[in-house]
Every structure is written in C-alpha cells, then in structure tokens.
C-alpha cells in the first residue's frame, strides 16, 4: 500500500484528514480508540477500588474531607482543561499544515501538563507529610493508586508528545507523523476525561462530609 493513496489538498498541501490518509494512519487511529476503550475499563477498575475503599481505615483527621484542598485541585483542573483545548488547537493547525502554530500549541500543552504534574507532586508531598501515605491505610493505597495511575498517564503523555516534537521538529507534517500527533492528542484528551471524573468523584465528592 503506497503512502499517498489520498491526494493533497491544493490549499494546505497535505491530504484532508491527514491523520487518516494512509491505511497505516487509519489503522493507528482505530487501534488507538480501541485502546482507549480498554483504558476505560482499566480506570473503571481503579475508580471502583477507590470508591470501595473511600476513607476506609483512615485515621481521624486523615479522611478525605480533612485533607483535600479545593484551591490546588481547582488550579490543576484548569491547567489540564486548558491543555485539552490547546491540544485541539494544535490539531487544527496540523490539519491546515501550519507547522509553526502546531508546535506552539503543543509546547503550550506540554507546559500546562507539566504545571499540572508539579501540582500533583506538591500535593502528594504535602499529604505524605501529614501522614496520609500509600501504606497508611487502605484508603491511602487506593487514593495513590488511582490518582497516581492518572499522574503516570500524564507523565507518559508528556514524554510521548515531546519525543514526537523533537523527532519531527524539522520534518513538517506528513502522512507518516500526522497520525502519531493525532493519536497522542486523543490520548491527551482521554487523560483529561479521566481527570474530570477524578476531580468530581475523588476530590469534590470527597470534600462533602
């Protein structure tokens, strides 16, 4: 199967739907969605475990409503939500073959993600010092596992997108790398989706006494 089965759009100079222009691209696209389908049940299992063990075994003063802080979580949420938007903007730039804009938006996405991750590290560190740790109770184990899995996903996303950027810095947008960019952006949105449930179920519901 040749690479250029879809003709270039005369204006942009790349095929429309460049992320799915080749069979390889289409395969990647579909495969990645299916992977996300699997990730859905992965996170559901983690959420279920967390819900089952919410506050279980936690000592007085270390329950969810004692320790969670609205402010930090709110800032982290805003950072991640915004990064989802910038990721969309990057993909829109990609589709019109605007390499510069795409890179810019991706770098902003990375920066926002990094900000989010710093917030999380700060938060974990804080909890650790007040005695809410991975081994302090079943609640602790479940909390760090769920939120940590999400954090690890963010970290992986950052590494992935930066590798893509560095690797393709001077290569423009092609039918080979466009699917990769696109799929990484799907991943990034999915991370955001998971976070929406984390801030709702873990933090907000956890703060209601």
């Amino acid at each position, binding site marked *: 199967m040749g690479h250029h089965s879809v*003709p*270039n759009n*005369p*204006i*942009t100079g790349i095929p429309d739907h460049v992320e799915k222009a080749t069979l390889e691209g289409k395969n990647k696209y*579909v495969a990645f*969605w*299916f992977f*996300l*389908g*699997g990730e*859905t*049940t992965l*996170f*559901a*299992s983690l*959420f*279920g*475990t967390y*819900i*089952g063990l919410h506050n279980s075994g936690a000592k007085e003063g270390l329950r969810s409503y004692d320790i969670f802080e*609205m402010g930090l979580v*709110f800032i982290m*949420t*805003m950072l991640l*939500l*915004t990064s*989802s*938007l910038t*990721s*969309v*903007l990057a993909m*829109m730039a990609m589709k*019109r073959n605007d390499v510069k804009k795409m890179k810019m938006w991706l770098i902003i996405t990375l920066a926002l993600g990094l900000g989010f991750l710093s917030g999380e590290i700060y938060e974990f560190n804080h909890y650790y010092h007040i005695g809410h740790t991975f081994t302090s109770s079943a609640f602790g184990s479940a909390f760090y596992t769920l939120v940590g899995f999400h954090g690890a996903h963010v970290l992986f996303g950052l590494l992935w997108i930066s590798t893509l950027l560095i690797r393709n810095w001077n290569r423009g947008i092609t039918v080979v790398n466009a699917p990769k960019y696109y799929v990484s952006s*799907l991943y990034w*949105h*999915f991370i*955001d*989706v998971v976070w*929406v*449930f984390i*801030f*709702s*179920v873990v933090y*907000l*519901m956890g*703060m*209601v*006494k």
Partner: protein
Amino acid sequence: MEKHEPQLTRNQVELELKADRSREMQLQLTSFALMIFLTLIAFGAVMAELMPHWAAGGFLIIMAIVQVYLQLYMFMHMNNKGNTWVKVMMALGIFVALTIVATLRLLIW
C-alpha cells in the same frame, strides 16, 4: 509530487476553508467555555455546601458526564463519519466500566 489544478479559484476555496475553520474554532471554543462553566458549577456547589450528601454525588456525576460528552464528541471528534466501530467499542467499554464501578460500589460490604 503531482500538482492539482484547482477547479474553483484558489481564493474561493481558501475562503470556504477559512469559514469552515472559524466555524470549527467557534465550536471548540464554545465547548471549552462550557466545560469551564460546568467545572465552576461543580466546584462552586461543593464550596458553597449547597447540597446534602446524598444529592452531591448524583449532581457531580451528571456534571462530569456532560463534560466528558463534550470532550469525546467535540475535542475528540468521536461523531465523525466512519467512526461506527469506534463508537461501538467505546459504548461497550463504557458499559463494562459502569458495571465495574457499580459492582465495587454496591456488591462489597
């Protein structure tokens, strides 16, 4: 590389593309605004302690679901043509996910 001779004048196409793009941009920005709005409501409701415990869960979950719908359909373009199997698989994934969460919520004691 083959050169395509545009049927319409270059200008016309470009204009149309631009219009498309700004439409999409508008859509995305609106979705984003909505997401932020929903988030604010959720945080606000908890902060203001508006709800009794039993109502909070349901309310927050509904807010989250709406927001996730926006992510999937606007940002991730799940509704695009040719995504039938994507939709099927995501729906099944979500179904299984709900079963799992419901179980670990209800069937342990």
